[in-house]
């Protein structure tokens, strides 16, 4: 009836094989996502904050904001 016999297909361990494969893939992708986020978002953000506060003069900024008239507790120096 058939031209030649086919190989017997895998009958057992199908779920285990799939899980092993997909577990490895999932771990790798998750680690890659976390590493990517760390080096593209958190490290630049930490740098930006460090740069901002390196030469930050709070009193100077306060006086500038006061002159602009955004505070309710202190008016600009002229008034």
């Amino acid at each position, binding site marked *: 009836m058939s031209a030649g016999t086919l190989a017997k297909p895998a009958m057992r361990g199908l779920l285990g094989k799939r899980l092993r494969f997909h577990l490895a893939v999932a771990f790798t992708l998750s680690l890659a996502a976390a590493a990517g986020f760390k080096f593209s978002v958190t490290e630049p953000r930490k740098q930006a904050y460090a740069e*901002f506060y390196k030469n930050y003069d709070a009193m100077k900024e306060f006086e500038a904001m006061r002159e602009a008239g955004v505070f309710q507790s202190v008016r600009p120096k002229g008034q």
Partner: protein
Amino acid sequence: MTSYRMIASRALSLVGRRAISTSVCLRGHGVAKVEDYALPAYFDRRESPLPDATFVKHLSSEQLALKEKEKGSWAQMTEAEKLALYRISFNKSFAEMNMGTQEWKSVVAGVFFFIGLTGFVVMWQRTFVYGDVPPTFTEEWIAAQTQRMLDMRMNPVEGFSNKWDYENKEWKK
């Protein structure tokens, strides 16, 4: 018990005995007729390979002869005969059944069309239904608003005020 019979006979006489008895005769003395949809049906389904019925229900004379030949040795049957037997039992092969259609193109086309139509509806609404936008959207208001946001140093590290050059009083390049 007797009260039931009395009510039943009263009901029967109201409906008319002749009408009921004729329909009973047509169906053969009260035996229910089985409609086609209630019988085991043929289906092409990947998850159930063997349907409840064969595809061809009324065999022609050649097909009957073939069925007789099937009872003998299969090695003496030709490929064409075996294929004919298959096609008696099944409508589509697995390959034919699983074949994709071009339907998705129509679906995508319909989706785009109705999105476009909705665009027209929205444009009409904007012109003829909605009133004016609040004064907070005027140029002067937005300018004053932006100046105030810069004055109070909103998001000075990475955000809004970070993009403004306070020395030169212009946006950073």
